[in-house]
């Protein structure tokens, strides 16, 4: 009897505050409802509308994927190199670790504000420095440029996650037994060769974990773009310049709570994203997992 009693609070809380809402949202996605008037059942019409007749949704999905392509590979490579270097240090290891994780534990609101200040057209520090050193004639309109805005959001994500990736890789490195390295040394393997032939393959599981979790997290990108455009400038510009920074979750939040209250339609966005997340998680696991695991 006791194990059931111990498990009960979690199960009840999950059912009440997460499972029920998830199911209810699915039911809503089959309805046309603005939160006030009567619900009308319309079957899968929301989904059909979303996928065939909403260019903004397709664009938001596209934007999200582009930004993920910008930040996931870069964070992985930089994080691995940073971890490898820091791991070999005899002193200052903990200091470098701690400093680089600080961005990860900072509230996204701060990150949004700081970056929208740094890249502001007129008053931003980046433009001031670039023009001062004569690399630019006049300030570049970073936040109003389609590719500039995406690059800055990618930069925000990289800045925030680099330290996290680094300590996860380092945790993986501590698990690699030292005699493997000794043996490699005996066989005359050094530096880069050891890194490529031993460290990288043995970090495979960690890499898979990081790729899969960052794909899942990346598809839910919202805080960074929203705060970049809602913070510093004060103008609550939805989606950035010409919607090039609009992500799927931003579109979802905007449809349901900000510009509109189309609860049924927004629920169909959430469910579509869920399916996409499951699809991409399986795909990225398949692509990155070691071959033996695929059997």
């Amino acid at each position, binding site marked *: 009897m006791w*194990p*059931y009693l*111990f*498990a009960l*609070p*979690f*199960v009840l*809380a*999950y059912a009440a*505050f*997460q*499972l029920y*809402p*998830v199911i*209810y*949202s699915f039911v809503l996605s089959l309805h046309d409802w603005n*939160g006030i008037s009567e619900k009308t059942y319309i079957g899968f019409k929301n989904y059909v509308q979303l996928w065939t007749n909403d260019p903004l949704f397709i664009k938001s999905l596209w934007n999200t994927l582009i930004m993920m392509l910008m930040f996931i590979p870069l964070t992985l490579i930089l994080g691995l190199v940073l971890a490898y*270097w*820091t791991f070999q240090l005899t002193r200052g290891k903990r200091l470098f*670790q701690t*400093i*680089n*994780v*600080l961005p990860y*534990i*900072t*509230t*996204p*609101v*701060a*990150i949004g504000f*700081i970056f929208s*200040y*740094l890249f502001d057209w007129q*008053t931003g*520090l980046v433009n*001031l420095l670039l023009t001062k050193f004569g690399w630019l004639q006049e300030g570049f309109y970073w936040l109003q440029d389609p590719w500039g805005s995406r690059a800055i959001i990618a930069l925000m994500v990289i*800045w925030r996650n*680099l*330290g996290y990736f680094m*300590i996860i890789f380092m*945790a*993986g490195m501590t698990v690699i037994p030292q005699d493997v390295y000794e043996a490699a040394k005996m066989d005359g393997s050094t530096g880069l060769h050891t890194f490529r032939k031993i460290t990288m393959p043995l970090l495979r599981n*960690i890499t898979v*974990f990081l790729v899969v979790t960052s794909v*899942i997290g990346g598809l839910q990108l919202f*805080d960074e773009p*929203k705060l970049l455009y809602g913070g510093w400038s*004060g103008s609550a510009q939805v989606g950035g310049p010409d919607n090039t920074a609009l992500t799927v979750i931003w579109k*979802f*939040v905007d449809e*349901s709570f900000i510009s509109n209250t189309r*609860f049924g339609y*927004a*629920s169909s966005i*959430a*469910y579509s*994203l*869920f399916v996409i997340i499951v699809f991409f*998680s399986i795909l990225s696991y398949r692509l990155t997992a070691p071959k033996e695991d695929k059997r």
Partner: protein
Amino acid sequence: MNAAKTAKTLMWICLVVISALSLFPFYIMIVMGTHYNEDLFKGIPILPGDYLADNLKTVMSADFMSVYLNSLIVSVVSVVLATLTSTLIGYALAKFEFRGRKALQTFVVLTMMVPTQVGLIGYIIEMRNLGVGNTLWPVILVWAAFPFGAFFMVQFIRDSIPNDLLECARIDGCSEPGIFVRIVLPIMKPGLATLATLVFLWSWNNYLLPLVTINKSEWYTLPIFISNLGIVHRTDYAARMLALTLTTVPVLILFVLGSKTFMKGLTAGAVKG
């Protein structure tokens, strides 16, 4: 030998530059909070200014303390709820044999895969129907069942609590809740600390959920308060930066003090999974 030395120097330079880039935005944030708002636009604020006291007055006059208290309440209650339910189910799954254990374990793993946003609309309507729509409750209750926490606790309890110890306690006639409180919880302190810091951090920094549930200023949490400060009042960037500093710096200090436990917590899921 010389090439190796150059490589090492280069590595050090890179490490220092990257670390500086990690810290630089924090520095800018802190410095900006000490300047007079209009002066921020005249040049590059590299050195601290002398306007800290006045900015502090602006921030405080905007109910900053009560918002701070809201955020503290939310985070502390979330931590208590999440660690309690996670530890209980973790203990059940790690240390008991019972019918349905396998199914329950699969259930916990599956819960980890569902993003919270999927049920967001349903959750908000549920909260409205329960009559706690525009309060702190929605931001707290979402932590009542924390899938990652449950998973983490199963792993942690399995590895850290010897079965013999539980058996001895049972033979000595200790009741099951007694065993949990007097034996399991004390041994679990490091795991509890890790989970607690993680939940605290995530609920403290949470932005999306309070954004869509709370629109009464008396229930604002820090992230929402700051993103609205300056829209409601005059556009005072310096004051906003100071408010951000006051929100961020205590968490950073806590992190640096407890960084050892913290790193373990962040990495626990990855190395095993």
